[in-house]
């Protein structure tokens, strides 16, 4: 096992989740796994996302289609949050100008 790869089998056992669920997440383009020596691995970078999808499924009983939609909306939310930060900084610039005058 490479240092940056986790066996999907281990993840499934630990989270009590079927491998089909992880494969379905991949089919939806939500995570990316990799095959090495005929075994399926998940890159460590993908783990946070996978955990999030598992929580959405387990805690809130959201199905795969729902997770796909939520993921899309969360990405939009993140983009908007970044835009808000940029706009807040721009607003701060104008506030400083007003104070200066």
């Amino acid at each position, binding site marked *: 096992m490479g240092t940056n790869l986790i066996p999907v089998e281990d993840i499934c056992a630990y989270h009590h989740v079927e491998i089909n669920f992880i494969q379905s997440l991949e089919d939806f383009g939500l995570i990316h796994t990799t095959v090495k020596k005929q075994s399926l691995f998940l890159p460590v970078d993908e783990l946070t996302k996978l955990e999030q999808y598992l929580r959405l499924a387990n805690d809130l009983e959201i199905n795969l289609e729902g997770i796909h939609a939520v993921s899309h909306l969360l990405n939009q939310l993140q983009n908007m949050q970044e835009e808000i930060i940029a706009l807040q900084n721009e607003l701060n*610039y104008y506030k400083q100008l007003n104070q200066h005058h």
Partner: protein
Amino acid sequence: MDYIDYYKILDLKKDATTEDIKKAYRKLARKHHPDLNPNNEEANKKFQQINEANEVLSDPEKRKKYDKYGKDWQHADQLDAQEQQQRQYQSQGGGYGGNSYSGGFGGEDFSDFFSSMFGGGGGRSSRNSPFKGQDYNADLQLNLLDAYTTHKQTLTVNGKQVRITIPAGVENGQKIKLPGYGAAGVNNGPPGDLYIKFNITDHPKFKRKGNDIYFQEEIDLYTAILGGEKIVETLNGKVKLKVPEGTQPDATLRLKGKGFPLYKKENQFGDLYIKWQVKLPTNLNAEQKELFEKLSKF
């Protein structure tokens, strides 16, 4: 610690059924789940409370104890033992002055599934599978000049010294992720990540808008009218600028590529804008006044 009313948290009556509790929990969890409320500390706290309330009320044994002992429900076993002891003591004819519990309530960490398992302390630590450690969050204050250049800084995160490189051009409020600087993983699993949020303080002179820098510079009336040179201080040193004749008050000069560095884009910079503030002469002497009067007649 203060008593926590779990029924109130889940907006339930004391006689709520198991189904009522489940419904109330699901409804509130959908609203406050941290995965649906990124970067929202308030929702995070609320979700923990909801989880804790659900943990207690959805478990018949815990709920029974909670209803019976209220804020001391966690010590119910000890209270029962005390009651037993008291009964025995009294039956032996002795007196009993009583013993009050000052112990607080709560303290249990009902974090989400993964954190509880991989952040250590979970009941499943006997497993041998490797899992990622918890992520850490930290705030870092910088001034504008700090953010102008790539530099190294040492932070103390959870008692450990972490030396990081801060790339030039970071924005106020921006978060960066440092993979592997979080809590240690479990069973040789990878460590968690460190998220750093930058808070950049305002500069008294230089104002930043995106990657552009703005500031105001004074010139006297004669330089504005006749033109001349002016040495100004910029973020990376002094520059000599030519002031064209007939420069109007508030006229702006743009120096392309002399502004703020673009984040993680080597040798790319925003622009620098200098607004000329024309300072009018005051306390004119008689001769100066006369000259201005002559000028005004042209």
